């Protein structure tokens, strides 16, 4: 256990950095609304480019990193942030899983750059990878975007120096709690059974199949689901479905061993 102090006296120093991404997850902080002000009473936003002029160089107690490291600058910021932060949190699926931009794989990405920018275009960027490819990550808050209530509970815990617990149930739990008609039973390739919960079944509750944006549930039975989807939707489509958010995860690599 890393923490042993008894009473909390110092204001917690929070930093939020964004790599390449949509910045939607950071917005969930702003969507805390009144509670954002409450949070600010107890913690300093020491460095938050999107919403503040403060840009302290550190050190930070908790650093949220959103987005996928792609540019050289991204990677430099990430490494610097790691060196001045006690805890690093991967904020959102871009950071935690490599995001949708990883769905074509490293090779696909390298092939794609000239197709979008022209043959002459030179880039120093690297193919998208999750944060954990470059640094150690202490806590994970996946989701595309993250879930506001989960963020709230997460922050509530951090403020009292408690370790936020990772979710250990699939999306189906929350989906059934909301009494949704099951989309898998309706023939759609829903990834709910093998996806880590925490989103309150945001998608199936409005009729959209789960895309797996919270990442693979540890110990989920991906193989069984794959078998079923292969038959119903074809092998290629099934790979596309699993590959939307999970290409960097062991569960995916086990099912689809060759590098894309």
């Amino acid at each position, binding site marked *: 256990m890393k923490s042993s102090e008894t009473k909390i006296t110092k204001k917690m120093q929070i930093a939020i950095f964004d790599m*390449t991404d949509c910045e939607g997850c950071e917005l969930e902080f702003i969507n805390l609304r009144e509670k954002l002000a409450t949070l600010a009473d107890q913690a300093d936003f020491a460095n938050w480019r999107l919403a503040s002029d403060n840009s302290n160089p550190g050190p930070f107690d908790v650093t949220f990193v959103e987005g996928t490291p792609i540019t050289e600058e991204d990677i430099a910021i990430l490494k610097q942030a790691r060196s001045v932060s006690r805890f690093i949190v991967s904020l959102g699926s871009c950071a935690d899983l490599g995001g949708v931009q990883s769905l074509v794989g490293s090779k696909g990405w390298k092939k794609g750059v000239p197709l979008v920018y022209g043959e002459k*275009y030179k880039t120093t960027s690297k193919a998208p990878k999750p944060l954990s490819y470059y640094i150690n990550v202490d806590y994970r808050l996946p989701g595309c975007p993250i879930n506001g209530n989960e963020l709230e509970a997460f922050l509530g815990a951090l403020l009292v120096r408690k370790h936020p617990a990772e979710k250990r149930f699939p999306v189906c739990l929350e989906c059934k709690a909301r009494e949704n008609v099951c989309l898998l039973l309706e023939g759609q390739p829903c990834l709910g059974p093998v996806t880590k919960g925490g989103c309150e079944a945001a998608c199936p509750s409005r009729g*959209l199949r789960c895309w797996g944006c919270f990442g693979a549930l540890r110990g989920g039975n991906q193989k069984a689901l794959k078998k079923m989807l292969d038959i119903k939707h074809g092998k290629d489509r099934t790979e596309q479905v699993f590959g939307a958010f999970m290409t960097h995860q062991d569960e995916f690599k086990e099912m689809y061993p060759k590098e894309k």
Partner: protein
Amino acid sequence: MQESVLNHYICKIEGHGDLKLNYKSGKATLNIDEGERLFEQLVLGRPYDDAPFITARICGVCPTAHVLVAIQAIEDAFGVTVNERIMSLRRALQAGQIIQSHALHLFFLAAPDYLDVVNAIELHHTRPELYKTAVAMKKLGDKLVEVIGGRAIHPVAPAVGGFLSVPGNDVLKEMIGELRAAIPMALATVELFASFEYPNLKRKTEYLATQQDGKLTYLDGNSIVSNSKFRGTIENYGYAFTEEVRSGSNSKYGTRDGHGFMVGALARLSLDQESLHPKALYALRSIWGQKLPSYNSFHNNVAQAIEIVHLIEESIAQLESAIANSKELARVPFTVREGCGVGAIEAPRGTLYHSVKTDKNGIITDYDIVTPTVQSLVNLEEDADEMMKKYGKLPEKELYRQIEMLIRAYDPCITCSVH
């Protein structure tokens, strides 16, 4: 101004931009530093209904605009016409998107410059009533998007052909009540932003927006209109401007006949004020009292505030129409076919285009995206040059600050510009 890798990007804009002023040449450059995500490649080889979901992730501030325009493009390719109920809900959804985005920009990104705080959260202490307004306005937009789209960021319910699920009429009625109640607050927002003292930047430029039969619109545009003589069609948006790739920057830059042009709230209102709803027109004429076009890009802030008023009124009308038509289907049947289609939408920051090609199974074979920020970037730099000319004598730090304020007034979304 670089001290550490942890602080060299411009604060309070969406995405990573770095401002360089070259005193010798009198030129300002906004370097864009955002990784290549290759969205146009990501959707290839996937079925059409993956496109709205994937392209939403281009931007967390305006995902709904991407979702709706992707759907428009696909429906265009398949030849789908949806019913009035669906259109009304989409218009209201798009209104919610713009309210959300404008409220975020105005209060959380722009306002701190003028209210002397390092971030909007401090307003909670210095001006608590204003902080309340800020979160309430943001919440209003969020709620509207959530009610119709299923989630405030990256909505899930809109789909090709309509909606996967729609809220009940009682929910819509409740929403209408909330929208009505918010109008005074929206007017107060106009008042606030009209009261700020903006630098006196004046530089004639070209404004572009989509309109429906010559009228202000956000979702139903059928032509591209400019304050010059130019008129274009949406299908041929590629001819309206050129997109350049610059070395060292991973955004593209849009120009018309070699010069910059502007899209977004100020452009839209400069091209048509007459179609504003009454309260918004009142806000423009009586609260602000500014004649448009004013050719001062800082005024984009006020234009956004006025749009909020207009879009609240608009969404009330659209929700009422959705309730009146609630017997119609929430999703119309359609046939997948080989085709190509274009969608254009007025996103918070200006016109957003998606175009798509599908094969006979609805698999995407080609995709193109042009974002508003790409279109406005050159104009932004031209404005910045003008600022250097005009305020070149100011201390360097102050000049940087002023130009950064200009950049924020544009509300650029670099995240979108590199997709």
